[in-house]
């Protein structure tokens, strides 16, 4: 059982390294952002596997926090690419 978890953690880390190639080589900026989003999602699964390996339940907050931070980073970067600014100015003032 533990051997299976170790092997799956190794596979997840190798796939993170594979996605890193797209960050280096991506022709445009949204390619790199998609690869970064995928790396954030894979980091969550690596944290879950590590929490199985260490027999601890204290990493679940880390999982929730990584999910929230990855989503906020993706939304703000895509808004920056689309409009050129992240927080717009108030026009009624």
């Amino acid at each position, binding site marked *: *059982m533990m051997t*299976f*978890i170790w092997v*799956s953690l190794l*596979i*997840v880390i190798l*796939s993170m390294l*594979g*996605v890193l*190639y*797209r960050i280096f080589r991506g022709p*445009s*900026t*949204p*390619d790199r*952002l*998609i*690869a970064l*989003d*995928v790396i954030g*999602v*894979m980091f*969550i*699964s690596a944290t*879950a*596997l590590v*929490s*199985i390996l260490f*027999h601890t*339940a204290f990493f*679940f*907050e880390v*999982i*929730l926090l990584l*999910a*929230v931070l*990855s*989503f906020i980073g*993706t*939304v703000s970067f*895509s*808004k920056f*690419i*689309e409009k050129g600014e992240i927080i717009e100015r108030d026009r009624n003032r």
Partner: protein
Amino acid sequence: MTVIANTLIVFTILTGLIFTVVTVIGVLRFPDVYTRAHAASKSATLGVIGILLGTFFHFWLNEGLFSIKLLLGILFLFITAPIGGHLLSRAAYLSGVKPTKHTVGDDLAEVVKQSKRD
């Protein structure tokens, strides 16, 4: 009992691993941004949901801990990951990234042109 639990855990984690590897192959081999976003948003979401379900079953059946936080994480990822993919591909289209030569139709171009004229 523990054999059944371990079978369930190995099955869910294996499903997540297969979809994670499929994500990497799609992101590395697809030709343009939109197909890569398609591969990334769908199969990466299913892969991480499989691995988190395996973790949830392991802590529930083997260690006796029913974790609400993992279920909340699964729900949050299931809601937000497709929204992230949609926002990224929309930003890519509006910033002028061209699709591949094999694309047959582009229905969004007329709408964008119309809204720029107004």
